[in-house]
């Protein structure tokens, strides 16, 4: 007699399980989706992206107008559109084959890594939350507050080399941690749903920063725009491959953080608790762990990592603060964490993939005349597909793993 059989016969087990465990279950399913599904999801998204490119291409539409008299024109127009789009992507994100120097050739890839840097940081934070069973939609706000605190230290303080950068980076982490602490404590003490609170905090952060930027202390001298002074050179991330590349020390720090998060989750006592609470809170509680403390700590660490993501633009690339400094990083990072299955290595790879898609933006625009928005579409599609493995399996007629058959039955 198996335990599974036993538990299904209990009528109590049938009654609506608490929402918590369901969402945790879903997170786990996402985390467990196989690499095959991930790969196929990327392929399917690229195909749909291709269809959009074809549809939007003027030459294709024109030639389709006389499709039945000269169908070849349509097909060659389609080929041209796709060819130029995908080669522009490759040239913009991986290797520029037209470049004359070696540096010019590899520049796109360094750009990809630069774009991936904040995504790694924030993706790590979100992945950490997902594994601990928390839906943190608030990376956007955490990035913004982190960038604000770090940026302020960067442009307002006058400190020696090294120390200045260190404090500015810590400031970023601290700002983000504070913005993560609020939903954490509201969830632990008041039962407030973290999804709603973090969404609301994103906007509060936005207006808070907008207000700060209207103050003299934050405003660039001689400018009326909501834009801060440039961060002091002592607080900027040094460029690690020389001045002709944008890649900065933040990337190395992001990799270090990925290792750190791996260590935290797999090798530390705290990570052990977070994993246990995320996977089965009631067993964790019965074993003497505090659910509330785990919730707050998770949100603080996740917030700190998101705050560090804010350091990439404010101390690395853009080097000053605006209220748009976070761009859409917070939401992009959700897709990174989901695609990376909440694991540090997966997140680094997913961030490089999405960083590459974004880095190819200018090249797409210039060489293929396509707006960068196609990248957002592909990104969203990839995540939609990997979130529903049965859908991907159905499209590509892949066999479903044993555990899924059980769920679907």
């Amino acid at each position, binding site marked *: 007699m198996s335990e599974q059989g036993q538990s299904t016969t209990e009528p109590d087990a049938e009654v609506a399980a608490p929402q918590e465990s369901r969402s945790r279950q*879903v997170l786990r399913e996402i985390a467990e989706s196989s690499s095959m599904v991930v790969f196929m999801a990327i392929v399917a998204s690229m195909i749909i992206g291709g269809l959009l490119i074809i549809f939007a291409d003027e030459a294709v539409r024109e030639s389709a107008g006389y499709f039945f008299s000269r169908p070849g024109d349509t097909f060659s127009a389609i080929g041209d559109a796709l060819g130029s789009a995908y080669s522009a992507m490759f040239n913009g994100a991986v290797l520029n084959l037209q470049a004359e120097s070696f540096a010019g050739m590899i520049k796109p890839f360094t750009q990809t890594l630069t774009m991936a840097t904040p995504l790694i940081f924030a993706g790590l934070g979100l992945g950490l939350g997902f594994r601990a069973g928390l839906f943190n939609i608030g990376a956007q706000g955490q990035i913004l507050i982190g960038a604000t605190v770090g940026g302020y230290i960067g442009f307002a303080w006058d400190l020696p080399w090294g120390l200045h950068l260190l404090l500015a980076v810590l400031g970023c982490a601290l700002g983000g941690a504070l913005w993560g602490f609020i939903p954490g404590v509201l969830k632990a003490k008041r039962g407030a749903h973290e999804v709603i609170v973090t969404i609301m905090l994103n*906007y509060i952060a936005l207006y*808070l920063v907008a207000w700060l930027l209207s103050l003299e202390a934050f405003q660039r001298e001689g400018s009326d725009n909501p834009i801060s002074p440039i961060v002091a050179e002592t607080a900027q991330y040094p460029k690690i491959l020389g001045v002709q590349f944008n890649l900065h020390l933040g990337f190395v720090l992001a990799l270090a953080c990925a290792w750190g998060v791996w260590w935290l989750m797999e090798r530390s006592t705290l990570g052990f608790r977070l994993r246990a609470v995320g996977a089965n809170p009631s067993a964790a509680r019965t074993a003497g762990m505090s659910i509330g403390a785990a919730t707050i700590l998770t949100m603080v660490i996740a917030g700190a990592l998101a705050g560090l993501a804010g350091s990439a633009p404010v101390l690395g690339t853009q080097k000053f603060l605006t209220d748009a400094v976070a761009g859409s990083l917070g939401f992009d990072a959700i897709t990174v964490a989901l695609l990376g299955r909440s694991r540090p290595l997966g997140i680094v790879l997913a961030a490089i993939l999405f960083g590459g898609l974004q880095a190819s933006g200018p090249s797409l625009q210039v060489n293929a005349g396509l707006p960068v928005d196609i990248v957002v579409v592909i990104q969203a599609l990839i*995540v939609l597909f990997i*979130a529903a493995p049965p859908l991907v399996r159905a499209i590509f007629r892949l066999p479903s793993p044993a555990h899924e058959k059980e769920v679907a039955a």
Partner: protein
Amino acid sequence: MTATVADAPAAPAPSAPIPAKRWGASIALGVIALISLVIFGLGTPTGSSTTFVVARNTDFVHLPTYTAPSRLAAIVLSVLALALAGWAAYRANQHRKVGVWLPVVYGMAIMGALLTWAGAGRDATSIQLTGLLTSSLFLAVPLVFGALAGTLCERSGIINIAIEGQLLAGAFLAALVGSMAGNAYVGLIAAPVAGALVGLLLAIFATKYWVNQIVVGVVLNMLVVGLTSFFFSTVMTENGDLNQALGMARLPIPLLSSIPIIGPVLFNQNLLVYILYVVVAAMQIMLFKSRWGLRVRAVGEHPKAADTVGIKVNRTRVRNTVLGGAIAGLGGAFFTVASGLAFGKEMTSGKGYIALAAMILGRWSPRGALAAALLFGFADALRAQLGTIGSPIPSQFLAMFPYIATIFAVAGLVGHARPPASEGIPYKK
């Protein structure tokens, strides 16, 4: 054995997230009202006055401009807020709930006090009351539609984070189809279709693949942003004809529109606003008085109970989510054809998330959603008004107001927001 544990048989469990007595709400309301009284009321210099312009030149009946003694008006409004806090405390003591009207009236009283204080002693400028109210309603339109969409979905148990995407999709398709037809009203018909499609995707992922509804919602928002921006930058930019600024004329309702203050605010609007009145009223009645509404609410609260009396749970959820998407899509038309604007990238700029907040604050009822959206619209309009008269309060803080209010609500600090019990949980037999 200690005495403390022995004599407290009915003490609530300390781990319970929500305290048994909900004093937090009335205390918070009271504190804010007191602050308002001190700063806006007593802080206003005596003898100064605030000018309110009520009538507009176009009105049939010309009303005089009111000039109120600022200090007195602000004190009266603050005391009113304080009284409302007291009423909330009284109800809490009786373990009874307060209606949604209370926080709304309260919010308006506090903001009124703020407005009076801000306008005090500024002889050169005056508060455009009618203009303020008109733009409140106007700014509230997409929020109401969005909040109604959220209400419709969540009442059946599906969390709709994709309101933002549905608004944006509606705005886009309204502009596109309207431009193709050269008629704004055709665009108005197309808008719900776009929202319904986004709703359908949400419903399929939620009920068929059991994907977490928050994940789907967030990603769908991204997808719609990406798609609309892509087509905006390609197809629409190449053919300007496909993205024209169309307008919908105001349709003043005879007689009603000439009522002072209310008339121009409520009854001199375009078709979308009148549709809004109808949709709110219809949904309020249908959701709470009809067979359909009873079944929808049962599915959202206790799907198994609904199933045991023969109601198809997932079918109900899919239909509601699609219908909700359509309503949000219709609201999206506000941004383009109903405002006389062409489509622009990400032009909904987070209004979908404020709509979500309005839904929560409105306690998942159409009437409440309307009230909360109007409050948020008022805050937004106030921000613009204070901007023109030179506000002592940074406009960003007023902009934060809806979000802070919502956090207070979900944390149980002001009122208690209780979502449908089964929202977000896939129904599996």
